[in-house]
């Protein structure tokens, strides 16, 4: 199976190379058979990568311990669930997994557009094949996942050799979320390849800028959604498994996943400028180029060990490959831009300084500043070493101080943007529109202060959350009211109808609301408290309003690990609330490591987060470490809303005509005018 796997990978490389070279020839000659054969080579590449990936999974499932990768990342007792995850738990496998996910996108694109966009697709195919060639080069020649073990025998010859059992999976990864977090994040990373490929292809094919944006709108949203979900799942995993009481540590790898998310988010907003007003074509092309480059950089940072991190599992020699690919991609982007930039000519015009347009410009500026600030902070230790021979660490406190003002400004704009009309907003309408949201925001801020949240940034954040929520509500209310009066529906149904008619705009608002919830959760972080105590059975400790009593302890032996479990009773006053069972797990395999299972009592107000830290090596007593983290649950709720909002935005618009059969033609445009004063109607482009 290993020979088969590595052979299919090699064949995939050959196919990709053909798709690339043949594709260029097809563009030059425009020979229809060549176009067709290169497209099919592109599809074959993907299918071969699928087969290779399944081969590796087969080796993992069949406990084939003659395989180096299986030995390093699995063992006999590992459950099937985690044998799936073992695929991406190591360097070689995760690079193959990258190729695998990219192939899913590539084959979808090739199939979806097989009879469409005839002239553009060869260019797209070439770009995609180029990216695939890079990863297949790594898969085949640099980090092959199909290496067999060999040992020197008595006669001094190398011969194959199999181990009895493997080293097992890194225990930190043996957690259900770890099975879904990396696929999500990687789907985000790989997904941005599609808009990148279309942007570059359109530029190479000398298409004016608007076409590729239109074609890739939904692909970008899908990638963005996976990326967002991946980041949040990663945060939740860190929270629930690492046992340090937090969810985001500004670790280089976390930062790396945030970078393309920030530029991708900026891109999702600035495309609207282009669709509505035909502006910023050059900017959008570069934003999507940068997003793709940051995705590659993110993979590079995760995998190369340039910056130290708990995530950078292996220090390896693939760094130069990534740097080379980044350079090459950048060079191609610059060359394509320099050659064909005339086709991106834009009439950039603003009617007024106060308008939706200028708020989008600010939005983009802030996301970009956020991105560069995180990037330069992450790389600063490396810079400092270059310049001063002294590595200066940049930790979480730095990022918090820098990012809180940026984040809050972005949150503020989330509320302001929808209040501003396209083209021009009069001061009068501003006053009218801002009044209530500001009052509601102030009430939220005051309420937060009264509830005991005494921290400037947090109160400001909660104030802004109220403000933004009210403006979003107003958007639904205003549009819903118009539809309600036209159709006689109830306001709630009318708002639903409204959202379904312009899914992109209202899906966007739902995502904004999700982000508000996330921000509410983040605001709680300023008030985290903790206590740590070495306890005997029967001892108790107090944290906030809770009293924790250590009732007893037991051990349990599972197939793959043994766990010590503490049984902790939680009291509020004298009333028992619940029992918590924090665990410490000791995993088998030669790579001895321990994992914590945090026990969390979660309410909307706060999380009681209890860790059994293990036996204190000094006193030999069990140590309970408890945290009280306010509002954390809101972050995960926000994540759910973000996903729901994106799904809504992806749904096709419901036609107003169906509902308003027989209504005069002017009705729908009257609605549009009411929703978006000052803009001529263009359906579904908001």
């Amino acid at each position, binding site marked *: 199976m290993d020979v088969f796997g590595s052979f299919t990978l090699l064949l995939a490389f050959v196919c990709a190379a053909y798709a690339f070279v043949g594709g260029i020839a097809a563009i030059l000659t425009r020979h229809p058979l060549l176009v067709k054969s290169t497209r099919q080579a592109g599809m074959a590449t993907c299918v071969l990568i699928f087969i290779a990936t399944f081969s590796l999974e087969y080796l993992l499932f069949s406990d084939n311990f003659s395989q180096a990768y299986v030995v390093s990342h699995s063992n006999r007792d590992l459950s099937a669930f985690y044998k799936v995850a073992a695929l991406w738990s190591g360097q070689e496998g995760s690079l193959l997994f990258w190729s695998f996910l990219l192939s899913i996108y590539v084959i979808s694109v090739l199939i979806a557009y097989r009879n469409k966009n005839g002239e553009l697709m060869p260019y797209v195919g070439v770009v995609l094949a180029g990216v695939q060639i890079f990863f297949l080069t790594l898969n085949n020649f640099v980090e092959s996942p199909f290496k067999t073990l060999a040992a020197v025998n008595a006669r001094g010859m190398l011969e194959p050799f199999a181990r009895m059992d493997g080293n097992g999976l890194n225990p930190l990864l043996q957690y259900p979320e770890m099975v879904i977090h990396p696929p999500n994040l990687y789907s985000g990373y790989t997904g941005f390849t599609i808009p990148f490929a279309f942007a570059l292809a359109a530029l190479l094919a000398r298409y004016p800028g608007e076409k590729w944006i239109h074609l890739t709108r939904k692909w970008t949203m899908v990638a963005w959604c996976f990326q967002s979900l991946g980041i949040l799942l990663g945060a939740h995993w860190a929270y629930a498994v690492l046992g340090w009481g937090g969810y985001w540590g500004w670790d280089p790898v976390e930062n790396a996943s945030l970078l393309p998310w920030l530029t991708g988010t900026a891109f999702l907003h600035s495309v609207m400028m282009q669709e509505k007003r035909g502006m910023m074509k050059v900017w959008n092309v570069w934003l999507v180029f940068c997003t793709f480059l940051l995705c590659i950089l993110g993979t590079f940072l995760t995998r190369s060990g340039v910056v130290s991190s708990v995530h950078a599992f292996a220090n390896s020699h693939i760094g130069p490959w990534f740097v080379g690919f980044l350079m090459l991609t950048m060079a191609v982007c610059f060359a394509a831009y320099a050659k064909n930039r005339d086709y991106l000519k834009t009439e950039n015009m603003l009617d007024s300084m106060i308008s939706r347009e200028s708020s989008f410009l600010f939005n983009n500026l802030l996301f970009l500043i956020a991105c560069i600030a995180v990037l330069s902070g992450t790389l600063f230790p490396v810079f400092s070493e270059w310049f001063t021979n002294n590595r200066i660490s940049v930790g979480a406190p730095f990022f918090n101080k820098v990012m809180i003002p940026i984040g809050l400004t972005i949150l503020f704009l989330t509320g302001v943007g929808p209040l501003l009309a396209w083209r021009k907003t009069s001061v009068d309408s501003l006053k009218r529109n801002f009044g209530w949201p500001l009052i509601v925001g102030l009430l939220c801020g005051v309420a937060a202060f009264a509830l005991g949240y005494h921290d400037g940034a947090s109160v400001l954040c909660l104030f802004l959350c109220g403000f933004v929520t009210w403006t979003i509500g107003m958007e639904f209310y205003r549009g819903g009211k118009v539809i309600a009066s036209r159709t006689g529906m109830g306001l709630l149904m009318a708002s639903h109808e409204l959202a379904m008619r312009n899914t992109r705009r209202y899906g966007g608002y739902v995502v904004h609301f999700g982000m508000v919830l996330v921000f509410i959760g983040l605001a709680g972080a300023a008030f985290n408290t903790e206590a740590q105590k070495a306890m005997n059975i029967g001892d108790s400790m107090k944290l906030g309003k809770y009293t924790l009593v250590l009732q007893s302890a037991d051990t349990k032996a599972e197939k793959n690990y043994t766990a010590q479990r503490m049984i902790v009773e939680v009291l509020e006053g004298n009333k028992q609330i619940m029992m918590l069972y924090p665990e410490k797990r000791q995993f088998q395999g030669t790579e001895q*490591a321990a994992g914590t299972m945090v026990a969390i009592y979660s309410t909307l107000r706060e999380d009681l987060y209890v860790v059994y830290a293990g036996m204190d090596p000094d006193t030999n007593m069990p140590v309970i470490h408890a945290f009280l983290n306010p509002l954390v649950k809101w972050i995960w709720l926000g994540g759910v809303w973000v996903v729901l909002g994106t799904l809504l935005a992806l749904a096709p618009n419901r036609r107003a005509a169906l509902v308003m059969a027989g209504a005069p033609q002017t009705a729908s445009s009257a609605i549009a005018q009411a929703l978006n004063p000052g803009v001529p109607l263009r359906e579904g482009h908001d």
Partner: protein
Amino acid sequence: MIKAKRIVYLAVVLALAAGPIVLAQTAYSQRAKEIATKLKCMCRGCDMSAGLCAHPGGSFSGPCDTAKGMLKEVDAHLAKGESEQQIIDAFVAEYGSLVYVEPPKKGFGLVAWLMPVAYSVVGLGLLVFVVRKWAMKPPAPAVPAGTAGAAPNEALARARAQASRETED
């Protein structure tokens, strides 16, 4: 091997149940912990501050031995009546600039703090410049056919027509 480990665990739990006589006591002061949140744990394995070290993946998720050592060291400095800044400086002298959790606001570390400010100022300046330039632009005059300016527009229009001919969606 596995059996032996289970026996060890069982013994541990039994010992627990019996209630060891050792009294719980933290080996370091609360103040030391506060200061140690501003010092990076130098075990090179956890990437956390010494004050908050939870050492994920370690067999004991409290402060690891390195962090404990640092905490005790902070207490020793405190006993000498040193200020927080003096203590941090002493640690930097001992471990180098790697011990900072955030860059110092002096020397090269200052660059880290000034960078985001610089981006914001430059970015904002550029934005204001662009907005003013775009806002001042008069509405595009209709270019009469045959003038010099028409050529690139024609090429663009041709490309646009081609693009919409060749794509659908």
